[in-house]
């Protein structure tokens, strides 16, 4: 299961970062590792756009198939972080999750 979560997805299942409806930044992620890296690189505006639409939870649960990670992101959402707090919060959750999954392989 952990190996499955860490797999690289095909291009059409990647997460595509937008800043608003229809405005694609050019950044995408095809794996949990790449997603973790991109979270600290992309514009905070893009993070806020997706975070409050529930896009990160949806993608991690339905595409990456990591329900535990989706729940952790959902918990963060209840705290309504914005800006750098959001970026740091997300990055912290993702790094921790990625490290845990890697260590169990």
């Amino acid at each position, binding site marked *: 299961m952990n190996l499955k979560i860490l797999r690289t997805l095909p*291009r*059409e299942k990647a997460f*595509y970062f*937008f800043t608003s*409806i*229809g*405005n*694609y930044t050019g950044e995408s992620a095809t794996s949990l590792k790449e997603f973790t890296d991109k979270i600290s690189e992309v514009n905070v505006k893009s993070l806020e756009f997706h975070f409050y639409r529930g896009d990160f939870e949806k993608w991690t649960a339905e595409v990456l198939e990591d329900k535990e990670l989706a729940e952790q992101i959902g918990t963060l959402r209840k705290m309504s972080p914005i800006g750098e707090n959001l970026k740091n919060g997300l990055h912290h959750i993702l790094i921790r999750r990625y490290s845990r999954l890697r260590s169990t392989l």
Partner: protein
Amino acid sequence: MKFKNNTVALDSTDLRILNVLQENARQTYTAIGKSLGIAHSTVYDRIKRMERHGIIKEYTAVIDTEKTGAKNIIAIMTIFTDPKESDKVAKKLCQAPQILEVYTSLSEELLIIAKVVAENQESLHEFIARSVAPLPGVLRIRTSMITKKFKETRFSIANNPRQLTFIKEKSNK
């Protein structure tokens, strides 16, 4: 007469007929002939010739979608692309029923400009995120939603100032 670059030579009578047809394509040959002062058989021959050569592509109905109750949204996408992949992206876009028009444009970067229709903002976003952003060669996308329409006409003979002058000059003689 057909030229090498796939164009067809048109004289002022052809242009005047096209102009009249673009205003109302349901007119009879007789009515067109009468308004232009030429025989209906001439109108018939010219129209058939222009249909044969593909100058007249089709006769269609222009529908006011707002009056049909459809609440669609229209947006203009500007797609920045890798020049090597641009044609492939444009052709792929043409296959999507949501895409109404596709153009390429060269400014500082090679762009594709496409007009897209969607039921609502969410379906517009879903379409762009799932079907446009993943296309190889797409670098980034800017989308503007149209909020109010001030003018919409299709290109016609009457929109082309040089040809219009030509038609008017011939009509006055």
